[in-house]
């Protein structure tokens, strides 16, 4: 363990809350790249809605393309929040402290971004929103619950609601902190958001219990969301989509890409918001170690997918597998995918020196996500292009510029929302940082060393 800086509460407040109370140049500059991407995407979607879906590369038989691939990717990224928060909270991993909020907020924003994709994908957003609302209006018809496309919004909105509650309760002490440090309208707004938080022992206790309870409750949702998204494919009759392994395969792939995205985010937060005192090399080290396990599990499922078709000997499924491995451009995609999401990063992460090298961790985590994006493409597209035996209408899907712009914009949108969020709330929970400091001050009882307990007294109001 490296020497950790000893932080006073005032210092923590100052270092974590500056983006809320001032707008510095580094924060402003960080807004530029996501804004450019986002504007490109807004233009692309406007053209698409105005012109119709012919501006995409979609054609028979690939009726689903980049939008759905990207939808699955962002649902995957959203799994990081719960993975980091819920699992690490339940296992009481101390190193989770500074990254929980960023991970959870990324969950929310990536869920919102992914929810936009089916709406864009349908080409006439007003219709899909109106007709999929679970209310019969004057039609006398409810959405068809047999359709996986009805399961999707149910699962995703459940996850979104849970995550918002999760983040909000963790935010309350920080809202109160900002309320106490500000005046005027800001004080009023944050006062409302803080829901009368005064930091009494009872409030802390309830907040802690709620956090643990939500962690436990959200875990089944976490597993089910991506399973249900994978069933969009697995319940169809398309060969190589119609496989039982898809649900766990998608979940583990989601965790792999999501936790890597958290690494990327940690590095960016450290640079943009100067959080060197809070996000340490230890944290990169710990996440790196976690990722080695996850990535290896993912690789196992990658082989399992092939193994299943080899054992069943189903002709069409084997043909798709062969196409994935040997046919251009999927052979290239497979090689890039396996290299970027496993063969390059994992041996590097085995070394402690690399895990503590932040620029290297940043770039390898980006590599993983390039690989995991391609993985979704690799799973979805080769199968649908060669659907069934009537070869007459087989064709290859070539994504258009409009679709690529929307994909880029989705990254811009998540980045933009995160930066905007950072303007209003500290990305590292101030109360967790302080709790961590207190916990580290061990208390000695005779020969036994016990961790310290938070003491709430009048003099320590600044906590």
């Amino acid at each position, binding site marked *: 363990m490296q020497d950790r800086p000893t932080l006073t509460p005032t210092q923590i407040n100052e270092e974590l809350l500056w983006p809320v109370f001032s707008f510095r140049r580094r924060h402003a500059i960080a807004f530029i790249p996501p804004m450019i991407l986002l504007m490109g995407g807004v233009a692309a979607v406007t053209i698409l809605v105005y012109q*119709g*879906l*012919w501006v995409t590369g*979609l*054609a*028979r*038989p690939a*009726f*689903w393309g980049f939008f759905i691939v990207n939808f699955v990717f962002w649902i995957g990224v959203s799994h990081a929040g719960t993975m980091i928060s819920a699992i690490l909270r339940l296992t009481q991993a101390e190193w989770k402290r500074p990254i929980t909020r960023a991970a959870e907020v990324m969950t929310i924003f990536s869920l919102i971004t992914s929810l936009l994709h*089916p709406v864009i*994908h*349908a*080409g*006439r957003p007003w*219709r*899909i929103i109106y*007709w*999929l609302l679970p209310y019969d209006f004057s039609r006398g*018809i409810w*959405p*068809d619950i*047999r*359709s*996986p*496309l*009805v399961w999707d919004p149910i699962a995703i909105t459940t996850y979104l609601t849970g995550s918002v509650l999760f983040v909000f309760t963790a935010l309350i002490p920080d809202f109160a902190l900002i309320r106490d440090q500000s005046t005027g309208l800001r004080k009023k707004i944050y006062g409302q958001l803080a829901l009368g938080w005064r930091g009494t022992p009872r409030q802390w206790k309830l907040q802690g219990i709620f956090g643990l309870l939500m962690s436990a409750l959200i875990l089944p949702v976490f597993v089910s969301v991506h399973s249900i998204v994978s069933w*969009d494919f697995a*319940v*169809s*009759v*398309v060969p190589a989509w119609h496989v039982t392994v898809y649900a766990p395969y998608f979940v583990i792939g989601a965790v792999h890409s999501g936790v890597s995205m958290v690494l990327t985010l940690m590095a960016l937060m450290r640079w943009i918001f100067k959080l060197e005192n809070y996000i340490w090399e230890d944290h990169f080290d710990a996440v790196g170690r976690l990722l080695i396990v996850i990535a290896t599990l993912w690789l196992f499922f990658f082989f399992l997918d092939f193994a299943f078709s080899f054992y069943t000997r189903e002709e069409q499924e084997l043909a798709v597998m062969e196409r994935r491995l040997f046919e251009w451009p999927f052979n290239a995609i497979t090689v890039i995918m396996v290299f970027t999401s496993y063969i390059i990063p994992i041996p590097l992460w085995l070394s402690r020196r690399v895990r503590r090298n932040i620029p290297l961790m940043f770039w390898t985590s980006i590599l993983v996500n390039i690989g995991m994006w391609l993985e979704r493409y690799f799973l979805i597209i080769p199968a*649908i292009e060669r*659907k*069934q*035996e*009537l*070869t*007459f*209408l087989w*064709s290859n899907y070539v994504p258009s510029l409009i679709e690529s712009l929307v994909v880029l914009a989705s990254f811009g949108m998540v980045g933009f929302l995160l930066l905007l969020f950072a303007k209003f709330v500290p990305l590292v929970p101030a109360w967790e940082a302080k709790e961590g400091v207190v916990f580290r001050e061990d208390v000695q009882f005779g020969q036994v060393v016990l961790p310290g307990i938070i003491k709430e007294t009048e003099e320590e109001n600044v906590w």
Partner: protein
Amino acid sequence: MSDVKWGMVVDVDKCSGCQACVIACMAENNIPINLDRDFKENRSIAWIRIERYWEGEYPDVKARFLPVLCQHCGNAPCEPVCPVYATFHNDQGMNIQVYNRCVGTRYCANNCPYHARYFNYRRPTWPETYNNYLNPDVTVRDRGIMEKCSFCVQRINAATRIAKRDGNEDAIAGLQTACAQACPTDALVFGNLNNPDSQVSQLYNDERSYVLQESIGTQPNIRYLKKIDEHAAAEAHAH
């Protein structure tokens, strides 16, 4: 009318690949004109299409034709995946597409093993003079809507009304879809499968009959009659 089950038999042996059914269907069902661009982009719309496969090596090549239309499956993969009931089964064994409900998820088309569903990527347009030729009984589909063979449901409905008015079933007995009506070789036979005397139900149980991609278990209302290849028999004798 629920004692009716519409079905079709496609005799592959009789099909000459003339595409008359395709043109008849387009005229009957207000299908937009497919331009070069639509074929190149694989976005052409044809509720019935003649799939052409080549068999053998040059110079001994044979063209094989397979007319494919919506199979009106009894156990249709497209139906349960639609979130808004835009496609469902009616009591006459037909797979119905409701254009007004379609939101354009395109899941049904992904899940159709016969590639029988077509999506309107563009808003359909016709040359000005063609507007008066459109069939008033058939909705023109806007962009963003899935469409497919309806078994000429407008004809079925009209015939049912006439039969009800006249009190006899003559109109229904003589009912033909546009494609079957246009087929010069009678390769397409349409009719009521529940009527044991109809031509279609007799052909339906012919020894040559088979189902396209039977392994998927879609239980279609359309069956195909096998090609009779006299050369294949001769070759078999020669060996």
